[in-house]
């Protein structure tokens, strides 16, 4: 009797589970999924016609995201990973955990970008941000910066994606001279923070004249705070590009839903949200153009970006160079 009751209960639960709407789990970095990021609006827009439940699982930032993917391996509940950047994609591809996305969409990136595993959803140039009122003429290159007494805050390339981006930026611009550039920059660096938010907080508190961030950062102050004083410096050697991508996990139990999400990601419903929630350039410029205020942003004349494999190979030696130059 007890057995049959148990079996009955079990089958009831099983039917309920089957009748439940399918769940698509998207693993992303923290600031994407918070109420101030694109997450909630993306969820609402996608759920409107997917007949599914979109859930976000979060891990610190882009770097923490990759570690989480590796940690969970093939057992991961996640179907889509959103928020890696091109300095991490070679490493991510090497795990063998990602499946081809099969989407081909024309993008508005300033460079050619095609990757069978990873689809770009937004991008931005790294740049040093300053306050126009306090620093009227910012340096226009790393060499000019090093020669000046302008103080900067940067992020640690060992714990943050902007920090790693800066490391690759100097390497891409100066090659063998990168170590010398870092040595020259040493006395400009106030401190090296663990992540973007600490560095930006220190800058706003007046601890430094400039902070490593994005050319799009002034847009936040302009649009959300009506504060036109922040500006980003364009460098003569070019500004390094960050391309943020998403990919489908091969072990996903919802491969069709995952494909549908990646396709949705490239449409207006997702891309239109990016500019004023993630404060980056959308991969596909919306039909109505970018929000007002984005037109005022500094546009680098030259874009630097290492190919994923090149970035992966350059990281270790560049890190040693950086450490040796700054560890005095």
């Amino acid at each position: 009797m007890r057995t049959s009751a148990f079996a009955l209960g079990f089958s009831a639960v099983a039917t309920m589970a089957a009748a439940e709407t399918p769940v698509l789990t998207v693993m992303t970095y923290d600031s994407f999924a918070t109420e101030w990021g694109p997450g909630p609006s993306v969820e609402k827009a996608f759920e409107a016609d997917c007949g599914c439940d979109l859930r976000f699982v979060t891990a610190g930032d882009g770097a923490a995201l990759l570690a989480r993917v590796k940690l969970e391996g093939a057992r991961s509940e996640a179907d889509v990973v959103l928020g890696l950047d091109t300095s991490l994609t070679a490493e991510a591809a090497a795990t063998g955990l990602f499946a081809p996305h099969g989407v081909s969409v024309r993008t508005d990136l300033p460079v050619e970008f095609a990757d069978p595993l990873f689809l770009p959803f937004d991008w931005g140039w790294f740049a040093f941000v300053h306050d126009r009122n306090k620093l009227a003429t910012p340096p226009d290159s790393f060499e000019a910066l090093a020669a000046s007494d302008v103080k900067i805050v940067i992020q640690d390339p060992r714990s943050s994606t902007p920090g790693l981006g800066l490391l690759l930026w100097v390497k891409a611009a100066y090659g063998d001279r990168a170590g010398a550039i870092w040595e020259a920059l040493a006395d400009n660096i106030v401190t090296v923070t663990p992540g973007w938010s600490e560095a930006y907080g220190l800058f706003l508190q007046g601890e430094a004249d400039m902070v490593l961030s994005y050319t799009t950062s002034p847009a936040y102050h302009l649009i959300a705070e009506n504060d036109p004083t922040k500006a980003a410096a364009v460098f003569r050697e070019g500004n390094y590009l960050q391309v943020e991508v998403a990919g489908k996990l091969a072990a996903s139990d919802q491969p069709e839903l995952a494909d549908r999400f990646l396709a949705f990601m490239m449409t207006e419903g997702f891309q239109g949200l990016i500019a004023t929630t993630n404060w980056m350039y959308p991969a596909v410029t919306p039909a109505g153009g970018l929000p007002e205020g984005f037109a005022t942003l500094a546009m680098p004349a030259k874009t630097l970006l290492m190919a994923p494999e090149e970035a992966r190979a350059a990281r270790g030696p560049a890190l040693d160079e950086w450490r040796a130059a700054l560890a005095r």
Partner: protein
Amino acid sequence: MARGAGALTRAGVGVALVLAALTLGTLAVVGLRAESAGFGPADVAALRFTVAQAAVSAALSVGLAVPVARALARRRFPGRRLVIGLMGVPFLLPVLVAVLGLLAVFGRGGILNAALAELGWPPVSIYGFSGVVLAHVFLNLPFAVRMILSGWQDIPAERFRLAAALGLGPVQVFRHLEWPMLREVLPGAGMVVFLICLTSFAVALTLGGGPGATTLELAIYQALLFDFDLGRAATLAAVQFGLCAVTVAVLSRLVVPSGFGAGLDRVPVRWDTRGAGLRLWDMMVIATAALFLLVPLVLVVRAGVPGLAGLPASVWSAAARSVAVALAATALAVPAALLLALAIHRGRGARWLEAAGMLPLAASSLVLGTGLFLVIHPVVAPERVALPVTALVNAAMALPFALRLILPPLRGIEAAYGRLADALGLAGWARLRWLVLPRLRPVLGLAAGVVAALSMGDLGAIALFAGQDRATLPMAVQQLMGAYRMDQAAAAALLLVLLSFGLFWLFDRGAARADI
């Protein structure tokens, strides 16, 4: 021995085993997933920096705490309790908030440099070795003061009375009463501060000024997150444990019991410190310490107040979650610390049990979080157990502080009344109920306050577990900062400080007797 005593001791041993599983066990789990072990020249440099900054930070924190605690112990003035309470706040601050507060004073744009510029003097820089040490002293001086102050308060009033009857001056009182107490208390206090600084992460990274200021914990972070080199992370964490073990072993030999015996719990009256010069000196010491510890706090409050009213609802629910986690962690950690202290006092395997009680201080919270994640992930979705796991980890990480607070007075009680209790056949639960608990009550309240406040600040690297809608208050602060909302982040940080201190105050005051 009564049966109750056996059960209590077994429970204490159980606590030690749980702590060992949480710290060494998680390290083993991470190590087992590793493909190789590595320890490079950069790691040697990190080891050297870690030990150097921790040693200097500990020496300065404890060294400066002695005059402060002495001044507080021998002076009575209106608002003394408030001063003692407020001076404890920095220890309970989330590190990030503390760093921002310090920068508002000592930073390039801080009030100190503004004042120096007014005088036409060159600015001082907080960044580098000195900044790391300054922040560690700021964070740990309060804890050292509290530990040493309770040492002073444990010198029976009758001893001071006797000293006065013998006509001993301040120097002799120091030699015969205060120095023996310090010999007993200082090594423990110094050890705790040293171990806290040993595993320091955010302070060294934010104020260190560059890769020269890499600590072991940062190297672990790098190994785990960027290289995904579990072997190197496990090796570094093992080195961290080794350092801790050596520290505990060396310092346990330096502790010399003072052997004062018990008094009648009277409030000490000090006849030896009535000189005007000494009074002035003490007041200057207290004022300087209060200034150093409180001005950054005032600036944190000032930065936070404007945004407080406009905080989004999600921040308030994160605050409620943090309070719930803190209360759960307190309910776990304080009884566990008491059981462990009782078992340590029983003597059998005391050294091992005490070492187990210190393990969480040496544990890398990143390795602990990763190990737990590896264990839990195959069984249940980590975000579903995020809050219970956070409470458990916070309880474990805060337990050493509770243990350090409980152990000395417990030893004092047993030294004074143990024989009498033995003669009366008072053992097990009865001994706990009638002898130990009533006398330990104030220190248990203090311990509960410390655990609750530390837990508010989230001690473990629990970010691996927390999902989108289960953020705790410290995570909400980070999220606001990550969304450019620095004003709201400052307000949320202020809320965190208020709640931490509120919990601490409730527990500490709730248990304290009005007459002491």
